[in-house]
Each structure stands twice: as structure tokens, then as C-alpha cells.
């Protein structure tokens, strides 16, 4: 019975992240447009864009290798699996017994690895620029992410997300300095990982300033749809991750009633809307930084993560 429940939760989770991810992207765009006093495209526009891209033919560069064609599916699959591992509305995910936070980081890293390879595959100047910038950013974001995980794991006693959110939702945690540091660091990493302002600009038309967009410039049709969907999934993943670790209230427990699921779902959507509004506000109020300022920005996340970990070695109650 428990297995069936776990399977059901996992199945709903996988469908749910896929379904909600473009909506989150659309919501951020709408909020940003409103802050700029524009009407903006409808929230559902990313779904329509994906449908359009899936219908369109794929235009390939003459010298594109098999890697260029395969990479979008690998990127999408890795990101989707990673997103399916983060509790959104219920914590009793079947996969979470086999995969923890470190696996999520590894899945995202492999997706990025293939994206960077694909960016360089065609041999245009922009793809190479984007790939090298992406690698510079990730070489700083990944260690920071691992330190954040160490902090959380030291507090919760596990790297398994279900255990972490169950523990952090309980009363025995209280206010922890180390968790506060980890939260700030995680937000910084999330901004960098999702190519948002001030690290990258998802709305730019300037080829020379792009990071993520420069790598995918040569993609079209269903390949581009896969990459766009993966990018939306990644944004949802990070919002769900922050929510499940730092705002775990409302998560349905393993084996609970479907009513609790619905409640958890409603709360999750509310968290997404709040995150989209905050992200839009942040992105509107800041200019993009120079490429060489990004290491300082991510260095701050790394140091915060390190500080959080060290504090826990000084005292378990910090």
C-alpha cells in the first residue's frame, strides 16, 4: 500500500513539475512586465511557445554532430529527474530513497556539461563564449551549492530531502544562524544557476553579453523546446528546493490523505507565485553585473556556505 502511495505521489510530482514549470516562467515575465508598466504577454505564453517550437522543423548547422542533436534530450531528462526529486506538495517521494541533494547537484551539473558541449559543437563564436562563461560560473556555483548542502545536512542529519524538510518543519529547529546564511547563499546560487539578472539576462538580445542564451543560439524547433522546458524546470526546481528546505510548512507527509495533497498543492502554487513576484522585483531593481564581478558575487555564496558549516562545528545549536 505504501509503495502504491509512493508511486502515485512520485507520478503526480513528475507530471506536476512539468506542467507548472512554463507557468512559473510566464509568471515571472508577467510580473516583470507589470513592474515596467507594460501589459506583457499572458502567463500562458510559454506553453504556447513550447507548442509552437514542437511543431516547427529543426534547422541544424551543417557541421552539427550527433552530440548537438542528442544534448537537448539529455539536458531535459537530467533536469526533469532532478526536479522530480525535490518535494513540492508531498514529501513521500519514492525516488527520494535512492537520490539525495548531492544527486540533484550532480544531475544539474551533467545537464550543464552537455549544454556547454553543445554550445561549442557548432563552432560559432557565441557558443564558445557562452560555454566558457557558463563553466566559469558553474565552477564557483557548484562548490557553493555543496557547502550549502553540508550546512543543511549537518543541521538535519541527512542529505535526503524528505528527511530534511520533515526535520526543519518540526518545532525543534527554531532560528538558526547557519540556516540563515545557507538561505542567502542558496538564493545567490539559484540566481546564477538560472541565468537571471544580475548574472545573466534571459531577455537580452545582445549576443555579446549572453551566457545561457549564447549556448542555445543555434538551436531551433523541438530541440529548443526541450532546452527551454529544461530551463523552466530548473527555475521551478530551485524555487521548490528553497521552499522545501526553508519554508517546509504545508508539505503533505508520506501516506497522508489526498486532501492533504490538495492542500499541499495549493500552498506550493502560492509559494511559486510569491517567488515569481520576488524574483521579478529583484531583477527589475538591479542592473546586470560585469562578467568579472560574477566570481565575487558567487564567492559571497561560497563564503556564506562555508561560514554556515563552520558555525555548526563550533556549536550544533547555531
Amino acid at each position: 500500500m505504501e509503495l502504491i502511495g509512493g508511486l502515485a505521489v512520485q507520478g503526480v510530482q513528475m507530471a506536476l513539475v512539468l506542467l507548472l514549470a512554463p507557468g512559473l516562467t510566464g509568471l515571472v515575465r508577467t510580473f516583470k512586465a507589470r513592474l515596467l508598466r507594460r501589459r506583457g504577454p499572458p502567463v500562458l505564453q510559454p506553453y504556447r511557445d513550447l507548442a509552437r517550437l514542437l511543431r516547427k522543423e529543426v534547422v541544424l548547422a551543417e557541421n552539427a554532430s550527433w552530440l548537438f542533436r542528442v544534448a537537448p534530450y539529455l539536458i531535459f531528462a537530467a533536469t526533469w529527474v532532478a526536479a522530480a526529486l525535490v518535494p513540492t506538495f508531498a514529501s513521500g517521494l519514492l525516488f527520494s530513497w535512492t537520490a539525495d541533494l548531492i544527486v540533484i547537484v550532480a544531475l544539474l551539473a551533467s545537464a550543464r556539461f552537455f549544454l556547454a558541449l553543445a554550445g561549442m559543437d557548432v563552432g560559432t563564436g557565441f557558443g564558445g563564449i557562452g560555454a566558457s562563461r557558463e563553466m566559469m560560473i558553474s565552477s564557483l556555483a557548484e562548490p557553493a551549492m555543496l557547502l550549502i548542502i553540508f550546512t543543511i545536512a549537518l543541521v538535519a542529519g541527512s542529505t535526503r530531502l524528505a528527511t530534511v524538510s520533515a526535520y526543519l518543519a518540526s518545532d525543534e529547529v527554531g532560528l538558526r544562524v547557519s540556516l540563515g546564511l545557507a538561505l542567502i547563499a542558496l538564493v545567490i546560487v539559484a540566481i546564477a544557476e538560472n541565468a537571471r539578472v544580475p548574472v545573466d539576462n534571459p531577455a537580452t538580445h545582445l549576443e555579446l553579453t549572453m551566457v545561457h542564451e549564447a549556448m542555445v543560439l543555434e538551436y531551433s524547433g523541438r530541440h529548443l523546446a526541450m532546452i527551454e522546458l529544461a530551463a523552466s524546470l530548473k527555475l521551478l526546481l530551485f524555487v521548490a528546493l528553497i521552499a522545501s528546505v526553508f519554508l517546509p510548512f504545508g508539505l503533505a507527509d508520506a501516506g497522508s490523505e489526498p486532501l492533504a495533497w490538495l492542500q499541499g498543492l495549493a500552498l506550493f502554487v502560492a509559494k511559486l507565485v510569491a517567488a515569481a513576484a520576488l524574483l521579478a522585483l529583484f531583477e527589475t531593481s538591479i542592473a546586470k553585473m560585469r562578467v568579472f564581478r560574477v566570481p565575487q558575487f558567487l564567492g559571497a555564496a561560497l563564503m556564506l556556505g562555508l561560514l554556515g558549516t563552520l558555525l555548526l562545528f563550533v556549536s550544533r545549536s547555531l
Partner: protein
Amino acid sequence: MPALTDLLAEGEPVANHRPWPRTRLGPDRWTFAIAQLAEGHWTLMGLWGEPASVHMALRDDETGDLGVVSLACPDHRYPSVGRFHPPAIRLERTASDLFGLEPEGLEDTRPWLDQGKWGVSRPLGATLPATGEPVPYAFLTAEGEALHEVPVGPIHAGIIEPGHFRFTCSGETLVRVEERLGYVHKGVESLMAGADLAHCARLAGRLSGDATVAYASAFARAAEAATASEAPPRAQALRALMAELERLANHLGDIGAICNDASFALMLAECGILRERCLRAAEAAFGHRLMRDRVVPGGVAGDLDTAGTSAIRALVEAIRRRFPALIQLYDSTASLQDRTVGTGRLDPALARQYGAGGHVGRASGRNFDSRKCPGYAPYDRLDFTVPVLEGGDVDARVWVRIREVEQSLGLVDQLLASLPDGPVRVDLPACEGEGMALAESFRGDVLAWLRLASDGRIARCHLRDPSWFQWPLLEAAIEGNIIADFPLCNKSFNCSYSGHDL
């Protein structure tokens, strides 16, 4: 130090060239003029060809005098100016493309506007059919370990004009940028030859659409000078009013667009609203959002009524109300200042050497505004200052624009308060003559030079965009910056592709 007037007196003066003199020089005096340019006593204002002669517009920086010197070149050769004075290089390459005039001693013999796609070569000189396949353009090279080239354009990801940029980088740092222009060559000078004034005025207003009032005004004033006539005072005031509205709209758009290139979309949105209000006020007052074809030789096409006046007054009030908060936002957003301050610094010595007009020159300490010097009606009776900064970076170019917006608002106020009565247009006589005029566009000084045939038609007309002397400076300003900052620098220059490509 010899004055330009002395040189002009030495040669054989050309009758009916107004308002400044034109002189035919011998080769030795031509060489002397080159030396004066190279030593920095004079500024090159333009260089253009004719089938068997070459002309140079000069400005004496000491006295502010202007003049044109001409050299006959029956064998289609002349001593190169660009060899000693680099600002002339692209102008000479253009004269070679269009007329087949060969600058003797110029090392750079590559074509400039001619990309081998016209079907003919030297379309304005002794025309020849184009010879076979176009030759690939030889970009200048840079040598060193781990240097890589990034070609960008001519088609860009945004909706902007076409131009190709060849970047040579070491990692993210730029070693060299070379521009390749000419993609929007329209053959305006050929189209004008032999056409009537009204048609040519329309062509002039289309050379660079964002500065259509400045171009049309420069052309109209040159035509009026050539026919020794003058537009009525009310027409002159209305031209200035339109020019200031055009400046307001473009500067507001630019300030927002520069910030947007640093991903600060808020400024673009807010400035975009103000720019749109300018365009709507122009539509209400003059019947066209960009005021195209409103300035004609002899005056302006239509009069301003009270509804138009109140639309402009409402615009000025709206900008005065909202703009200070935007300046405050620009000045107090640290992340934005971090991008603009110190980026793309242009050396004041280069700005002076190239005679850079507009915000490019004024942000690098070159105090030149053709509304002040040589000056033209009605600006001689209006009170305004020309903002000059020394910083030379993107930030300084933004601030020059901000200050010019403030000055333009004051000018619009003064113009509306003292609008003369009377007719807005006179007919120009059909007669022979040569005329030249400078008009200050939002980019800088537009030069128009023309010669009328005895039937009043255009024999030859040359329009020189301020971008001719700004594009090369962009290459200099960007050196040592990172490649990701190029769009920001480029936008802060905002040179015209269309105006430059002719």
C-alpha cells in the same frame, strides 16, 4: 600660426559659394592644409569628391572660421589627407569607391562602402561595370597566442541597423575591433544628381531617419545659401522647435536604451514613455511623429496652430515632472553606475583630432556645438549652454545627454514664448550657386554641401553625417574593455549606419 582665412585668400576663390568661402588650391597649398590638419591647428569637417576634383571642409579651431578648399585632379589622383590625418581615411576610401579618385600615399587601399555588390564600380565617376566576384574584405590582423576572432553581424539579434564588427579577443578582453560598414548604401548622392530641390529635400530627410529634421534643415539651409535667400523668421523658429523635439525624443530614447544594455530595463520603460510622448506631441503639432518632410527648402511645410502649441507645452511639463526622478534613479543605482562609470573611455585628444561632434565629443571635453559656433538662426538669439564633460566614459555620454535634454526643454520654452509671426515659406529662385550648412542633430553636426545648376536643379550634393568621425573613435574607445561591454559602449555612441553608408 597661419589662419585658415589666409589660405583661403591665397587660392582662386569660387564665386557664389555661400556663406563661407571656397577656394581652388594648387597641390602645394593642399599639402600645406594637410600639414595644418595633422598638426591639429584645424579640424577636418568633411571630405568629398567630384568626378575630377576633391573638396575638403575645414574649420580653424582658433578663430572658428569655416571654409572649403578644392583641388583639381584631372588624372584622378590627389595627395592623400588620410596619410597624415587619420580622420580622413574612410572619407578618402569612400571618394575612391564612388568617384575613382585615388588618394596618393594612403596605405589602406581597401574599398569602404563598395562591397562589390553594386553591379558597377565608381557609380559617380567614370563608371565601370563591376569586375567579377567581390573580393573578400581583408580585416586587419592581430597576432598573439590564444587570440580568437568573433565575427558579429551584419544581422543582429535585435532590431537594429546592419553593420559587421570583427572582434579580436584575448579571453574576454578586446584586443582589436574593426568595423565593416556599407550594408545600407542607398546611393543618395547619385539619386540627387540632376533631381529637383523638392525631391532632394525628401531624400536628404531620409538619409538617417532618426535625424530627419536635422538633415532636412541642413539641406534646406544649404539650398537657401546657394540661392542667396533666407527662410522667414517664423520658419526658422519652427525648424528649431522641431529640431529640439527630435533631440528630446532621441536623447530620451538613448538614455533608456543605454541602461537597458546593462539589463536595467526600468529606465528603458520609463524613458520610452517620455519618448513616446515626444513623438505624439510632434504628431499633434506637425502632423508626423518623426517630423519627416516638415522642413523644406525655403521654410517649413506647415504652420503650428494653438492646439500644437499646447501639445508641446504639455509635453515639456510632463518631462519636467518625471525626468528628475529618472536622473535620480540613474545616479543612485549602484549596479548601473558600476557598469557605466569608467567603461569605454575616449581619450579627449582623439576626440579633438577627429573633430567628434555631439555627445561623443562633448563627453570627452570637445566644446563644439554648431548651434553656437558657427551658429545659425534662431539659436543666436536664444539662451542655452553646451554641456561639456571630461570623463569620456559611457557615464559621461549619458550625462551629456541628460544635460542636453534639460537645455532642449529650455529652448522649446523660449521658442514657444517668442514665436515670430509671418509666413512660413518662401519660394527659392532657380539659379546657379553653391551652398553649405551645418545643422546640429542629436548626434552632432550634420554638414550639407550642394551645387545648383542654372535651372535650379542639384548638380552635386554631399551630406556628411557626424558618425563619420565617431565610428572610428568607437574602435579606439573599446580597446582594453571586455567584449561583454561592447554593446553598452556602442549604444552610448549610437552612431548612424544609414547616415554613414550614404
